[in-house]
């Protein structure tokens, strides 16, 4: 058996956008994306808003039906006959701790929902014991289990969301910007919790975020997305020190460092212009409209990922 838990092959997700009466244009949110995630590994996925990183996470879980491509989980292709088991073994934690918990349910019912749906208990007692255990794992006290979601702070809500994801004892969790909406001091609590849970349960993560410092901290490998494509993928420190794709380079230089002296000294590579609309994708390389090194070939064909160092791949014509 291969060491990869999740294998994504040529995944595509196009959304039909209505552009007139009964006429639609495909919005290519994710366009031909492939990667693998090993057992117990964290793959970071970074990119700017609208680059399709959240869509990748949701499409992998088949929350959106993929337009094309395959997801292979634990050696088995995810399809109609494996989806039920896959739903139990692969879970998701969302960004918004406010919209991700049903305001009409108590915490116990929110965390217990995956147990109900998958019928993972025999008696009511077994259910409440499991719910207690889960809440305990994420640091919510038992007397709070009859409270409603809106009574908790953002960080606590995110813990509840994590407890829900853990309920069906998954092996793989898609973390869709799980700390972006949290305050700095709370972020660290949640990041540490993700790390603890990973070592405790041997979880694999797809960790989606736009904050490069957070992604670098938590990930083993990082994939950088731009306009539905993965432009560079490498081991975390390798990517940080030896980024080769011009987009990754500018992204890294744009991160504001909490250090006044370095901020004064640093030369930011400020990218010109805005991200093009995914409805009107540029021909060839998607990044060429903002790239300082773009040449004629960049407009002709879309570069494929190629290995630039062991385990380090990038998609650029100028390498």
């Amino acid at each position: 058996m291969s060491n990869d838990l999740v294998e994504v092959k040529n995944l595509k997700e196009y959304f039909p956008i209505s552009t007139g009466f009964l006429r639609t244009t495909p919005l290519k949110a994710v366009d031909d994306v492939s990667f693998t995630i090993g057992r117990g590994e964290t793959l970071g996925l970074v990119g700017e808003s609208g680059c399709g990183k959240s869509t990748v996470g949701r499409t992998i879980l088949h929350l959106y039906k993929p337009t094309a491509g395959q997801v292979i989980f634990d050696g088995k292709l995810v399809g109609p006959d494996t989806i039920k088991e896959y739903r139990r073994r692969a879970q998701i934690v969302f960004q918004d701790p406010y919209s991700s918990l049903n305001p009409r349910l108590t915490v116990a019912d929110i965390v217990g929902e995956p147990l109900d749906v998958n019928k993972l208990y025999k008696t009511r007692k077994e259910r409440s014991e499991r719910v207690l255990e889960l809440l305990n794992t994420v640091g919510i006290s038992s007397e709070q289990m009859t409270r409603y979601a809106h009574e908790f702070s953002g960080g606590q809500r995110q813990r509840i969301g994590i407890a829900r994801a853990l309920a069906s004892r998954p092996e793989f969790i898609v973390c869709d910007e799980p700390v972006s909406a949290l305050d700095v001091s709370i972020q660290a609590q949640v990041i540490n919790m993700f790390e603890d849970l990973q070592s405790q349960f041997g979880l694999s993560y797809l960790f989606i975020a736009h904050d490069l410092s957070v992604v670098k901290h938590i990930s083993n490998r990082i994939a950088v997305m731009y306009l539905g494509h993965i432009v560079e993928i490498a081991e975390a420190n390798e990517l940080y020190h030896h980024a080769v794709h011009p987009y990754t380079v500018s992204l890294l230089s744009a991160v504001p460092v909490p250090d006044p002296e370095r901020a004064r000294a640093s030369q930011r590579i400020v990218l010109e212009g805005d991200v093009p609309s995914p409805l009107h994708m540029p021909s060839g390389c998607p990044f060429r409209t903002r790239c300082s090194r773009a040449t004629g070939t960049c407009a002709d064909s879309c570069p494929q990922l190629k290995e630039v160092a062991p385990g380090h791949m990038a998609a650029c014509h100028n390498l």
Partner: protein
Amino acid sequence: MAMLEVKDLHTSFFTPAGEVKAVNGISFDLDSGKVLGIVGESGSGKSVTAYSILQILSHPGRIISGSIKFKGKELVGAGEEELHKIRGNKISIIFQDPMTSLNPVYTIGNQLTEAILLHTDRNKEQANARAVEMLELVGINEPEKRLRQYPYELSGGMRQRVMIAMALACEPDILIADEPTTALDVTIQAQILELMQDLQKKLGMAIIMITHDLGVIASLCDEVIVMYAGSVCERGTADEIFYHPAHEYTKGLMRSIPSIDDDEHERLVPITGTPIDLLNMPSGCPFAPRCDRAMKVCLTGRAKEVRVGSDHLSACWMNVKDGAERGVIQTDDDGNITAIDLEGNLDGTAEGGKAQ
């Protein structure tokens, strides 16, 4: 005399559940041409402070007490007409969300010239020319064409540029930027920060930068105020705050952010617990329930702001304790603490706590 003097400002929101003390006695001065950063988490009162200065608080918020003086003129209790002359003219503000701060039914040009016509005696043509000039200044190409466009036709970064153009059109003395880059992507954020830095150098206005992002503070600000639950924890020059944080909250904040340079995987040190409920404000230090080093005195009373460095004040009992143990506390004749020489760089005749 500083251009803007805020003294003991208290602002509360009177909700059905009770009084929320959003700003609980903050004071600061802003000199012309300086960039002041106010950093804090959600609920720290940083935005409410800004809204209080302009008195654009939404119901049920109200300034309870305190004084806000702009060039010596008192703004608290000033008439609507007087405030009108100052808002958008002498002090302007840009908001976090560039999507909602522009009116979608008017063109960019319409909104921009309106702001100019309102506050200056330019005629329509001159205002138009000024609008074009402003758009050029904030780095928008083809300004004439943009003036005829509607907000939805522009991207988020572009809209924030328009907002900045609008805010600066009347050459204000102070620009308040309320989380101006939070809703933007990293690369666009870099563009806007760069732009603000350039414009500040070119036009020389003072900026109050409100953000939760320490990285943004570090790249832009001369002075920093750290807020927690409506109160000032610590203030000083950016270098002092980043390199010699004195307040336990600031220290905790610095420890809890992952560093992008850290190649060895070091575990983060989070601040435990959750933020205080602003409806039930304790009499002691609001950070005490989350503070690892909290002492009995922290739970009963608030520490006064005391000078701990040459341009550095902190309101933390831990500084008092450290100072007492090391015997570096300076007092006046009445025995009141005036400074604590934590770094060994205060001379004996230094002036007392600026904020008192």
